[in-house]
Each structure stands twice: as C-alpha cells, then as structure tokens.
C-alpha cells in the first residue's frame, strides 16, 4: 500500500488528481508537481511560515502536512489570489506599504493575512500581529507588513476579488 496513493485535491479552484507518495508533503507537491513555486520552503519544520497556504480556508504550514492528508480538501495558495492582472487587495497593500523586500516571506504573510481578514474583517494591530506571528521576516522588521494588513482590511470589506473563502 505504500508506493503511491491517488488523491483529489482542489488547488486554487481547480480540481487536481494526483498520485502521491506517503512521504511527500503538501508543500513538495505544490512546488514540485504543480509548479506553484510561490509557496516557499525554508525551515521545513513549522517554524518560519514561508510555506503557509490555506486548507479549507485555514492557514496551515504546508511543510507539516502530508500531501495525502489534503485528499478531498480545498487548497488556496498565493497564486490563487489575483484575478487576471488584478492583484488581490492584500497584494496591493503590501506593495504600497513597502512591506516587501526580498519577498521570500511575503506569500506566507499574505496567506495568513487572507485567513485573518476572512474571519476578522477589522483586526486590531495586536490581532494582526498574532495572526502573523508564525511567519518570520528577515528583512522588513514587520512594521510595514502589519501596516499593509491593516490598510487592506477596509478595502476587503466590500466584495473581495479572487478569493473563494
């Protein structure tokens, strides 16, 4: 029963059928099988948040989830946010606030923020920090990242575009 397991997973709105090995992480499948390299791998052990994606609308570390565990689930990655050329309000807010330097942490930060704003459309700075505390940034010092999240919040309250959660 080991070698390969069939799974069906919805990624960014599109249903995918894949055969995965039990020891493949969701992160590896996203990056290496589906070429969705926006999701980053860094620590591989849940410490840095670079690999954050949403599974059924909730932020998780994709490095700590086996791909087979995603069977039947709905996965949203950074690639699923923009619609065509139009950026998601959080992506725009990150650019405007100067919250992106090297950009390595950015997809994870934004995915955590998407999950936060979906359940808490008007977060306090403390709530925004708590929601993002699982993501490390080695460049920005976080101030502009938090500002970007708070800036994006009112813009998302009407109708969000691109997200499906």
């Amino acid at each position: 029963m080991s070698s390969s397991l069939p799974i069906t997973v919805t990624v960014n709105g599109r249903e995918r059928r894949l055969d995965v090995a039990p020891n493949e992480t969701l992160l590896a499948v996203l990056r290496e099988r589906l070429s969705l390299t926006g999701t980053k791998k860094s620590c591989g052990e849940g410490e840095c948040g670079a690999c954050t994606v949403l599974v059924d609308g909730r932020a998780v570390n994709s490095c700590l989830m086996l791909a087979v565990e995603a069977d039947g689930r709905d996965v949203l990655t950074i690639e699923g946010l923009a619609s065509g050329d139009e950026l998601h309000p959080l992506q725009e807010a990150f650019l405007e606030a100067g919250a992106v330097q090297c950009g390595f942490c950015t997809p994870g930060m934004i995915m955590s923020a998407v999950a936060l704003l979906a359940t808490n459309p008007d977060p306090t700075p403390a709530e925004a920090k708590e929601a993002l505390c699982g993501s490390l940034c080695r460049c920005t010092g976080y101030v502009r990242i938090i500002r970007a999240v708070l800036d994006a919040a009112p813009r998302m309250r009407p109708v969000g575009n691109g997200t499906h959660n």
Partner: protein
Amino acid sequence: MQSFDYARPSSLADASELLVRRGDDAAALAGGTDLIVQMEKGARAPALVVDLKRVADLGDGIERRDGALRIGALACLEDVARDARVREGFPALAEAAGVIGSVQIRNRATLAGNICNASPAADTAPPLLVYGAQVNLFGPRGRRSVPIEEFFLGPGRTALEAGELTESVDLPLPNGPTGSAFCRLARRRGMDLASVNVACRLSAAGELRLAFGAAGPTPILVQDEGEVFLKDEATDALGARLEQMAEATRPISDVRAGEDYRRAMLRVLSRRALNTARRRLPESE
C-alpha cells in the same frame, strides 16, 4: 523524510488493531505538528503512519455531555482556544491552547495530541489538571476513562496501552463558583516552548488547585484549601503556603532556563495565576 506506509482507517477498531499489530513500527497521526517534524528530522522513522483524521468515531467537535464539556480527539487547538464555552467555563485551557505555536500550528495540532505526546512542558496539561479532566480512551479491551492526574507517566510516556487511542477529553463542569487562569513564561511571545507554566483554579470556598508544567518529568498537580487564598493580600502566610505547594516540583536546568530560575518563576507565576483566578471568581458567593 524517509518512506513509510500510510493507512487511513475509518473505524476506531481498525485503527487500534493496526496499532497493536504493528507495535512500535507504527505511529498515529492526528495534527502531525510533532510527528511530521520528527520524521523530517529523522528523529522518528515509523514504518507505518496511521492517519486518524478519517476515523468516523473521532470527532473534532466540542459539546456538552453529561455534566462535562467534551472535546473530541481531533479538535484543533485553535478551535479549543476560540470556543465560547471553553473561554467562559475553562479560561485557563483557552489561554494555554491559544499560546501554543502559531495560528498555522494551532489549526493542525490537536488537544489530544498535545497530551499524548506527554511533553513535560505541554501547555494544555496544567489547565487540564486543575480542571480535573478525564481522558476517554478506546483500545483493544474496549473503552475506559483515565483521570488526567494518572495519564502522564514521564516525558513522552502516558497511560495509553498498546493500541489505545484517545477518543475525547471531558472537562467536568464545576459544582460551584470558581475562577481560573493560566500563566506561562517563555523567551518570546509566540512560537516558543514554555520555560515554566502554571494553571490555577480557585473555588469560592478557598479550594486551590495549582498545576505546574516544565517543572518535573510530568506536569504536577497540587491542592490546598484556606481563607488565605481568597484574600487579595500578598502576606507572608500566603507566600509560605504557595511555597509549600511548589515543593512538589522538580525542575531541571536546560537550554530554556536554569533550575533556580525556574523555581523563582514558578513562585511568581503561581501568584499571578492565583491573583487572576481570584479576580475571576464571580462577585457574590
């Protein structure tokens, strides 16, 4: 990560049978936030991973059941931390569940997994101890319920027998008015293990339950009773009583803190937890 076989049983009986048959070769997977890290690092290399998340009888719900709040084995820490009934009736548990790891970790990690790993520093253990939780188990010989005080046997060791699985955790609703709180010391706010942690429950009659984590090989529960705990005064008498209660602890020195520092901080956190618990006692007795 090295390769392994993967099984996804749909019933408790099948899950348990697999774990018995494969013994130490098998590892049970719930949230995976410890197991997958250990496998990634090569610290554990099970030949078989038994994924419990599709076991029909294992729920992720939190519900009132026979004078208790029952937390299903698959309930994640974020859901425990946010549940209104947990926050209202068992705030120390909500506080502890809410400081573990990060949102991403808490969305996967389960309460049951936190206790089954039996880390001496497990943040949810002291609250479960002061609330007198019962751990409901399913195993080859059927179901049984173990008081949480008897659940932890040592670092990484629990009362679980071969093939036994935690089905749910019950938090008995208190008989009278109580106040409770959780305090922890860590080197930073998020994403760190506790250097020490303390949970406290005080009843309006002055019964005090304190539980300490990262203060010995297992989390430790101690109890005392007296008027002195109800008074909002930092008297020597109170200090001496709390000191006595902390005598049961056996902290060690490690990378997170030295033994003496742990002892000193246990005193501070005990007082803080007691003060908060006292403030949370309902006004009229």
